[in-house]
């Protein structure tokens, strides 16, 4: 089994981030085990996405430590593939060219196209390689975004509410695709969601977060085999409990903070 559960790949200690006088999190700490599926559940606008922005280096942290396999780094942007809520496919490229973007940028190896085609087949996109994004459904776009994420060949995959914009049926079919990331592609997954049921169906570990300043309120290890069913009694009990916890948090202070200012021009990418 790939999920070792003991080797910590990512460790975050005493992380602090604030914008002007607003402290989004202070003293935030957590660990991510190798091969695990960790879900962060919290009220909307509590700072989950800002946490991912800090992790990937999109915004800098004020204080704290991020370590990758014991090595302290300013961020793990080069270690992690990041999939956001929106598919962010480029409308002028075909699905296959969108998926191949990471290899085009990094001058990837010659086998990358074969790999993309394999992933297209595995994720049910065969036959749609040459379609442009506006000609396919939302679910297919998200699958394509997932293929692009997998093309990064990074061990850690950060998923920021990847299914929240989809309808219930599409979401269910893509949940099984997310499980494939862990079981077949041996990825370590850290996922943000505010869908408690989704977290309980997919994750090995669920961290319930407070409203800002964000911190871990409660942590569950879920040892049920996957795929799980949402009507399992124990899961339903946990779901009710988590929902009660979150209900207590909602309205305690939530805000939308996304990419306050991204510098442009030559050299900005390294700033």
């Amino acid at each position: 089994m790939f999920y070792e559960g003991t080797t910590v790949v990512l460790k975050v200690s005493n992380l602090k981030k604030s914008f002007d006088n607003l402290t989004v999190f202070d003293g935030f700490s957590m660990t991510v085990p190798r091969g695990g599926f960790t879900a962060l559940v919290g009220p909307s606008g509590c700072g989950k996405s800002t946490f991912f922005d800090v992790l990937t280096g999109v915004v800098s942290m004020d204080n704290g430590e991020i370590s990758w396999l014991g090595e302290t780094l300013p961020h793990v942007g080069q270690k992690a593939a990041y999939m956001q809520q929106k598919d962010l496919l480029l409308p002028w490229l075909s699905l296959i060219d969108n998926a191949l973007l990471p290899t085009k940028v990094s001058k990837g190896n010659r086998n990358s196209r074969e790999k993309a085609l394999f992933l297209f087949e595995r994720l049910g996109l065969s036959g749609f390689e040459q379609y442009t994004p506006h000609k396919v459904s939302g679910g297919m776009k998200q699958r394509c975004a997932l293929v692009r994420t997998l093309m990064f060949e990074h061990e850690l995959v950060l998923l920021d509410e990847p299914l929240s914009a989809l309808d219930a049926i599409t979401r269910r079919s893509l949940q099984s695709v997310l499980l494939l990331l862990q079981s077949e592609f041996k990825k370590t997954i850290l996922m943000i969601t505010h869908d408690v049921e989704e977290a309980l169906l997919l994750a090995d570990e669920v961290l319930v977060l407070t409203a800002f300043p964000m911190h871990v309120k409660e942590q569950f290890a879920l040892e049920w085999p996957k795929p799980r069913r949402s009507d399992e009694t124990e899961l339903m009990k946990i779901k009710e409990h988590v929902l009660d916890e979150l209900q207590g948090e909602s309205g305690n202070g939530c805000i939308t903070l996304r990419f306050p200012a991204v510098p442009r021009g030559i050299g900005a990418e390294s700033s």
Partner: protein
Amino acid sequence: MYHAEISCRAAWDRSRVIVKRSGFFPLTAVVLILAIWEMACRGLAIPDFILPAPSRILSVAIFQAPLLLPHAGITALEILLGIALSLLVAVPLATIMFAHTSIEQALSPFLVVSQAIPVFALAPLLVIWLGYGIASKVLMAAIIIFFPITVSLLEGYKNCGTEYVVLFRLMGAGFWDTLRLLYWPWALPFFFAGLKVGVTVATIGAVIGEWVGAQKGLGYLMIQANARLSVDLVFAAILWLSLMGLSMWVFVGFLERRIIHWK
């Protein structure tokens, strides 16, 4: 009865959509204006050297084609070379201004000032510096066109979605990769909007240059005809210029639809 009313209403709505899409209203307006103009000229017996009737202008534009065509060819060449020159300057300039914020801050005032100076004021100078040949007219056209293209392209680059820029940064893309794969395609609709404005006003630059000093071109022909009170020929030249501007606008629109297939 109720269903019949609904189907009648639907048919009425469909016909309104067809009428709107077919350009019925603009066409009607043009026909109406021309009809009033024609009737006024005939009814009030306005002489041709004051205001020729549209039918007279059309017949001169058609039957004087052998005279108009060589001049139109020169003006078209000036405009096309002006467009090419402005593209050669505007695209790299907008890109450099986008790549270096300090250059943008330094050049922006000059760009604005370049538009505040009337083209008429520059025309005599350009004719002195570059002569009576085609070069001064090409430069006049280029000066007029390059501003909307530069400004539109720069705005297009800046308009690029922040989340996409972050995605490219996380992929480890440098500025030039991001420019090639993201910023440029993103800015293309803006670029074409600027180019459309540019090609429609390009005729102004070329004609002003020809007015000030030239030996060929529709502007030159207009000055000559005006001196001989051949106002119908002046109007025929204006008609040819309008058709040239319109053709270029349609062609750029065609290119835009072919290239920006995702819109």
